[in-house]
């Protein structure tokens, strides 16, 4: 369709222009109405408004629509709500495959099967975020460039219909000379920090144009933020692991050259004097603290046979809300376990028939030797289990690497035993020994021999274990930069308002129109104040030209 886009003032406008970019005369359908003008983006054509769109233009046009953007926001909002109905998988300690059905019945099963149990990591949720990001970029570009063009080359003398169809309008005769009036009003406008431009008896006053860029700066910040969030899924940028360090020990932080030592772990509870009546007698924690030292390995790091050479690089008392931080690596207090665990036992071997005692020998719970020589007997360590249990096939297995229920299978050779040796399963913990029925497991050898610890002086317990969360997140600084930019944009856009006032004279009649992007209430009182100072008393409300305010 052919569309004449040339204005009577001679300016050639783009297709889709609502108000002539030069004189402001309403074009097309806008010409026919008497309603206040649609001033959004100053009536310029957006980039997406093209005469013959191709495929890319169509995609661009789709994402450039604010309507689509609002739909995307609403869909994301509803999807987010779905994700809060039941606990998400990442918060569970239980097996998700059974958890939802067991706790929430059929609905829970459906919830799990639909993948809503991991809503926020699902491909469709991430797609939504990517689409919002695309919409942010395209919506902004589509509007900010034409808007910038329109605002940077404004005409001072506007078309009369442009002025009288603003939402804030004053028309009326004035007394005295037109030039003097313009001078008077210009002076008052300057007091209100307007930039005033005149052309004969036409005037344009403008202030706070920068506030128009607020939304776009906000969007730039949000895009950066979203990119930083998406970048976190790139491997290598992001490390997140937990280390358990018993008091006094130094553990390697796997995958790095660092080692971390727990010098002392403290947990304090409030005393009853510090607590209000209703909480007396409860264990209300006051402080968790790990005195931590961070080491860097400088030599023999991957040598299995040698001890690594460590160099202290940082030292910090880690408490909640105050992590250890060193070159982007952070160690957070995450949890603790004060249950005493065996660290070292000194058992003896007893020949039950003769009553003889051999040993003691030193058994390091975590790193035992492979052979022990006690008296005439040799104990060969065949296997060790840190947390003894029976596997699904009935064979012994270990559930974890933490010594929660340690067990050691020795092959004992020596006098009174078969030549090839006899197997003996030893549980250092008395409670495990009873629970797993050590004597029954060992069968006949249990009647003749026993490995046991004589008294607590032969047991060394480890201190409390602190759980530290080790994090390295290279994307985080960009998150903060994005958030900061976004915040600046929001403040610019919401706490300042772009205000413009145009006026002109036609046969002795003053026509004044004013426009703002937000807060017409304030705009009207400002115009009324300025007019009042220039000698025309008006009620702010009377300037309202009807129509909706934004």
């Amino acid at each position, binding site marked *: 369709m052919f569309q004449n886009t040339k204005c009577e003032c001679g300016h050639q406008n783009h297709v889709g222009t609502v108000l002539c970019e030069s004189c402001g005369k309403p074009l097309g359908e806008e010409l026919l109405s008497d309603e206040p003008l649609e001033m959004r983006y100053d009536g310029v054509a957006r980039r997406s408004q093209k005469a013959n769109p191709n495929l890319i233009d169509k995609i661009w046009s789709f994402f450039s629509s604010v309507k689509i953007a609002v739909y995307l926001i609403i869909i994301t909002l509803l999807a987010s709500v779905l994700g*809060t109905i039941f606990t998400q998988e990442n918060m569970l300690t239980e097996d998700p495959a059974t958890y939802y059905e067991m706790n929430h019945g059929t609905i829970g099963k459906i919830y799990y099967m639909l993948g809503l149990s991991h809503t926020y990591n699902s491909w469709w949720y991430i797609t939504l975020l990517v689409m919002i990001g695309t919409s942010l970029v395209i919506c902004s570009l589509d509007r900010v460039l034409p808007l910038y063009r329109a605002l940077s080359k404004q005409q001072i003398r506007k078309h009369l219909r442009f002025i009288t169809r603003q939402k804030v309008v004053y028309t009326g005769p004035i007394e005295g000379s037109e030039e003097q009036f313009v001078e008077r009003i210009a002076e008052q406008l300057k007091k209100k920090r307007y930039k005033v431009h005149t052309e004969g008896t036409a005037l344009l006053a403008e202030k706070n144009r920068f506030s128009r860029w607020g939304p776009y700066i906000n969007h730039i910040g949000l895009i950066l933020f979203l990119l930083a969030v998406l970048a976190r899924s790139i491997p290598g940028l992001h490390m997140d692991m937990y280390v358990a360090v018993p008091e006094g020990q130094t553990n390697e932080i796997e995958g790095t050259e660092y080692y971390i030592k727990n010098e002392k772990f403290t947990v304090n509870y409030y005393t009853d004097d510090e607590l209000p009546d209703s909480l007396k007698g409860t264990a209300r924690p006051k402080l968790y603290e790990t005195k931590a030292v961070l080491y860097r390995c400088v030599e023999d790091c991957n040598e299995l046979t040698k001890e690594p050479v460590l160099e202290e690089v940082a030292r910090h008392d880690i408490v909640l809300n105050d992590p250890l931080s060193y070159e982007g690596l952070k160690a957070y207090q995450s949890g603790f376990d004060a249950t005493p665990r065996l660290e070292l036992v000194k058992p003896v071997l007893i020949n039950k028939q003769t009553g003889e005692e051999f040993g003691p020998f030193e058994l390091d719970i975590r790193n035992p030797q492979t052979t022990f020589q006690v008296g005439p007997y040799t104990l060969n360590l065949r296997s060790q289990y840190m947390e003894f249990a029976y596997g699904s096939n009935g064979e012994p297995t270990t559930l974890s690497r933490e010594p929660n229920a340690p067990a050691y299978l020795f092959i004992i050779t020596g006098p009174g035993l078969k030549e090839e040796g006899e197997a003996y399963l030893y549980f250092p913990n008395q409670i495990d020994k009873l629970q797993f029925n050590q004597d029954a497991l060992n069968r006949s050898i249990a009647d003749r021999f026993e490995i046991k610890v004589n008294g607590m002086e032969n047991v060394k317990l480890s201190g409390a274990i602190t759980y530290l969360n080790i994090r390295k997140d290279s994307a985080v600084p960009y998150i903060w930069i994005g958030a900061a930019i976004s915040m600046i944009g929001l403040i610019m856009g919401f706490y300042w308002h772009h205000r413009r006032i145009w006026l002109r004279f036609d046969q002795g009649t003053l026509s004044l129109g004013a426009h703002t992007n937000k807060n017409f209430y304030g705009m009207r009182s400002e115009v009324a104040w300025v007019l009042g100072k220039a000698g025309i008393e008006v009620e702010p409300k009377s300037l309202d030209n009807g129509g909706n305010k934004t």
Partner: protein
Amino acid sequence: MNFWLELSSDSFIAAFFLYCFGFIFYMIAIGGKKWSNRDSKAHVKRWGKIAYIVSLLGLAAHLLFFFARWYGSGQIPTSNMYEFMTFLGMAIMIAFVIINAIYRTPLLGMFALPLTVIIVAYASVFPQEVQPLIPSLNSIWLKVHVTTAALGEAFFAVGFAAGLMYLLRVVDFKQQTKEAKRAQRWVEFTLYVLVVIVGFIVIVFAFRGADYHAEFMQEQVKIDSRGQESTTTETVEYTLPPIFKPYNSVTTSMDSFLGLQEPLLETPSWMNGVNAGRKFNTVIWSIIAGSILYGLLRLLLRKRLGAVIHPYMEGIDPEDLDEISYRAIAIGFPVFTLGALIFAMIWANIAWSRFWGWDPKEVWALITWLYYSAYLHLRLSRGWQGQRSAWLAVIGFVIVMFTLIGVNLVIAGLHSYAGV
């Protein structure tokens, strides 16, 4: 109890009553417009001013409460539900004062005040004693995050108040068209919900006055990652008669109420927040009490509540109300973004080692933010104004309240310590 804490709790009571009086004076200002023996404009101006000054005194007492409690306890009073809700009430008053300074509409207080009164009264339902901080809350960000987030939400509350005023002003209760009837129904429903909240406060204090008590043993079965079942039993105390007992529980003791010796029903299992049973029972009681209260009001007034209020709103420019509602939200939005999202992320990054963890409370803060950004886009770019915008402001505040209270009620999460 030390001197400062005592001063603080006295100021709280003073603030509460000053707010109540402020509200009454606002009602006189508006209700007295039609009294025959006076000039209505001067009357509104005079009483509007008195009401405003009394409200300001209330805010001053409230600030005294806040700072005295801070000084007396050595920690900022924003760490549990009581402290947070009183702070929210105070923030609403501050937001109201700011918006009122811009627009000078005497009647905004007519809606902001009762909202504050309800929130402050709601706060006092919770235990008021000072609870020493647990380690995870011991941070400067407790001060920064909670106060800014609450202030942002307070502006949304003022936006809600003005939005509701707008609806009461423009929805004509005499019209019979289908559309008008629908609007009337929803306005009435909104007012009903407010009455239910009042009902909640009334019922809690009534049974507290009667010293009602019931106790249950609740068994909770947990299955850990190794497939081992463990059972824990917890004592759950009720201060309202149990219509719903906790899920999977037995009664230990129960005061009789109207011949009721045993709980009638059991709370559904999917309500898994802290003390879900008790809270659910309270909700049911609130609805019952609120409905009775609403019924009494209807009997007394013989009209729908909206139809009673509507005539008093005449003379207020609806476009001003529309603008106030929008401006309050526009002012609150950056504050909310900063407090409830950015500061929250900074704190989460320090305390929980990640800036975002999809904890239900975090998600709901995001939902609130998405909602209000949709509101702003609809208004600024799609021209949604007037009634549609006012409804959005009303619904928005429902979402805010769900984020603050509802999440703690029905969903368990890291923020659960904010409840009781």
